[in-house]
C-alpha cells in the first residue's frame, strides 16, 4: 500500500475542506472494508486519507412517525439489528444482515456501502488496462463475464453495481443528504448511482468533495430484498431483487421493484412494477412481474443464466414483502 497522510477531522466542515475537487488524491475512510483493499491492490493510491470516524453525530438511527433516518457512518450490523428497522423496513434489515460476514458488517457502514467501488476482476487487477482506470475499452464485454451485467444496452462498462443495500433503498424511495463546499443537498437514491465510463467517474453522482451525511427512508410500505447466491451466507449475490409496495384491500399499489447485480447501476424494473400495480399479490401475479422484469435484457456471453434468476428473485421478493408463505424454504 502506498503511504499517505492520515487526517481525523472532528466536524463535517473540516472533512469537506480536506477533500479535493477531483477523484484520486484524497479518499474518505469509514469502515475501510473496501478502501484498504483497493489501496493494497494499488487501484486507489490516495496521498491523503480522511477518516470520518472522529466526527460525532454521523452514526445512529432515528425513527419518526413517517421515516427512519440512518447516519452514513452507522455500521451495517447495527442497521440489521435495529428494532425499528426490522419492524418497518424488513427488506433493509434483511439486506444489511446478508452483507459479507459479521466482521464486514461490524466495520462496514451505510455510506461506504453506497459509495464502494465495483468488484469486476478486471477493474480490481492493476495489471490490466480497464476502461475505468484509463484503458480503451471494457475488458469484460468480450472477456470472462459470468458475474457481470445482463442488461447491457448503452453501457460502456458492464460491471454490476455491488451494493446490497442500494436496491432496497431505491425501492423504498429513500433520500440521501450530502454535504459539500457549498452546503447540504438532498439526492433521491434512485438518482444517486450512475454507470461510470471513464477513470474520473465513480459509481455514484457525488462530487469528489461531497460527503454522505445520512439516508432517510419513508416507512409504511410492504418491502423485501431477496438474493440468489451460490452459498447461503457470506457470498455476493448473483442476482438480487427488492420490492416495495402498499397493500390495501389485498391489492398492490405504488409498486417499486429494483434489481441488483444485473447492470452497472441498481436497475428500476418499471415493467415489473407495472405488471403488479393494482393486482392482488399471489404466486401467479408475482411470477408475471418476474417475467416482465427481464424485458430489455441483453446478456453477455456468460450472463444468460441471470435471466432465470431475475424472474425467481422478483417473484420471491414480492411474495416475501406481502408476507406470503416462503414455499422455497423447507
Amino acid at each position: 500500500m502506498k503511504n499517505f497522510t492520515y487526517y481525523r477531522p472532528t466536524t463535517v466542515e473540516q472533512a469537506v475542506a480536506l477533500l479535493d475537487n477531483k477523484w484520486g488524491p484524497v479518499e474518505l475512510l469509514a469502515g475501510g472494508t473496501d478502501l484498504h483493499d483497493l489501496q493494497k491492490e494499488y487501484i486507489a493510491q490516495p496521498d491523503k486519507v480522511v477518516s470520518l470516524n472522529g466526527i460525532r453525530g454521523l452514526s445512529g438511527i432515528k425513527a419518526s412517525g413517517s421515516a427512519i433516518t440512518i447516519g452514513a457512518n452507522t455500521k451495517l450490523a447495527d442497521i440489521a439489528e435495529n428494532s425499528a428497522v426490522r419492524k418497518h423496513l424488513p427488506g433493509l434489515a434483511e439486506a444489511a444482515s446478508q452483507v459479507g460476514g459479521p466482521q464486514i458488517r461490524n466495520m462496514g457502514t451505510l455510506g461506504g456501502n453506497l459509495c464502494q467501488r465495483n468488484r469486476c476482476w478486471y477493474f480490481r487487477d492493476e495489471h490490466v488496462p480497464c476502461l475505468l482506470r484509463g484503458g480503451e475499452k471494457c475488458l469484460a464485454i468480450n472477456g470472462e463475464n459470468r458475474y457481470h451485467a445482463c442488461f447491457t444496452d448503452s453501457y460502456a462498462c458492464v460491471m454490476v453495481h455491488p451494493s446490497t443495500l442500494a436496491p432496497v433503498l431505491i425501492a423504498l424511495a429513500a433520500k440521501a443528504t450530502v454535504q459539500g463546499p457549498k452546503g447540504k443537498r438532498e439526492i433521491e437514491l434512485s438518482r444517486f448511482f450512475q454507470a461510470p465510463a471513464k477513470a474520473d467517474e465513480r459509481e455514484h453522482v457525488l462530487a469528489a468533495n461531497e460527503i454522505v451525511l445520512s439516508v432517510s427512508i419513508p416507512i409504511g410500505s410492504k418491502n423485501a430484498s431477496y438474493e440468489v447466491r451460490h452459498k447461503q451466507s457470506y457470498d455476493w449475490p448473483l442476482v438480487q431483487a427488492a420490492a416495495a409496495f402498499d397493500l390495501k384491500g389485498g391489492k398492490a399499489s405504488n409498486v417499486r421493484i429494483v434489481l441488483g447485480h444485473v447492470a452497472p447501476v441498481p436497475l428500476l424494473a418499471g415493467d415489473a412494477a407495472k405488471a403488479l400495480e393494482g393486482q392482488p399479490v399471489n404466486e401467479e401475479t408475482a411470477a408475471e412481474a418476474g417475467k416482465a422484469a427481464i424485458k430489455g435484457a441483453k446478456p453477455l456471453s456468460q450472463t444468460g443464466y441471470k435471466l432465470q434468476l431475475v424472474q425467481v428473485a422478483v417473484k420471491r421478493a414480492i411474495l416475501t414483502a406481502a408476507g406470503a408463505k416462503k414455499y422455497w424454504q423447507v
Partner: protein
Amino acid sequence: MRKIHVHAQINGLPTDFLCEPRQSLLEVLRDELRLTGAKEGCNNGNCGACNVLLDGRLVNACCVLAVEIEGRTVETVEGMATPQGLHPLQRCFMQDAALQCGICTPGFLVAAKALLDRFPHPSEQQVRHYLAGNLCRCTGYDKIVRAVMDAAESSS
C-alpha cells in the same frame, strides 16, 4: 512517512506503539507487539484468520488501520485463556479435534467467543451463519461447529 503514536488497551493492558498510517492493526499486532496469534491469511477480509475484538466487536484486523484504534480496546486470541486455564472454547476445540493445521484456529476462537458473548446458546444455524466469515481448508467445519455448540453447552 512520520510515525504516529497510538495508545490503546490491548488484552487488558494499556499499550503504546508507533506506526505508519498505512499499517494495519494486524501488522502492528504481529510485527510490533509480537502478538502473533492473529494470522494473515488473505489480507483482504475474506478468511477471518486475523479476527480480533475491537471494543468487543468482531473485526478483521487486516482491514483496520492501526491509527484508527487510538483510545479503543482490542482483544486477541492471546487474551482468551487465563492463568487459571483455557477458555471453554479452547478446551472444546481440543476435545472435539476441531483443528488440523491450526492456522484458522485463532480466528475461529475469537469469532466463536464474539458469538457466545452475545448469544450464549446459539442454534447450529446461528453458529454457521456467524462463522461464515472464517475459512478453514482442513476440517470441513463440522467439528468446529460441534466444538462451539459443546462450549455453549458446557457453560450453561
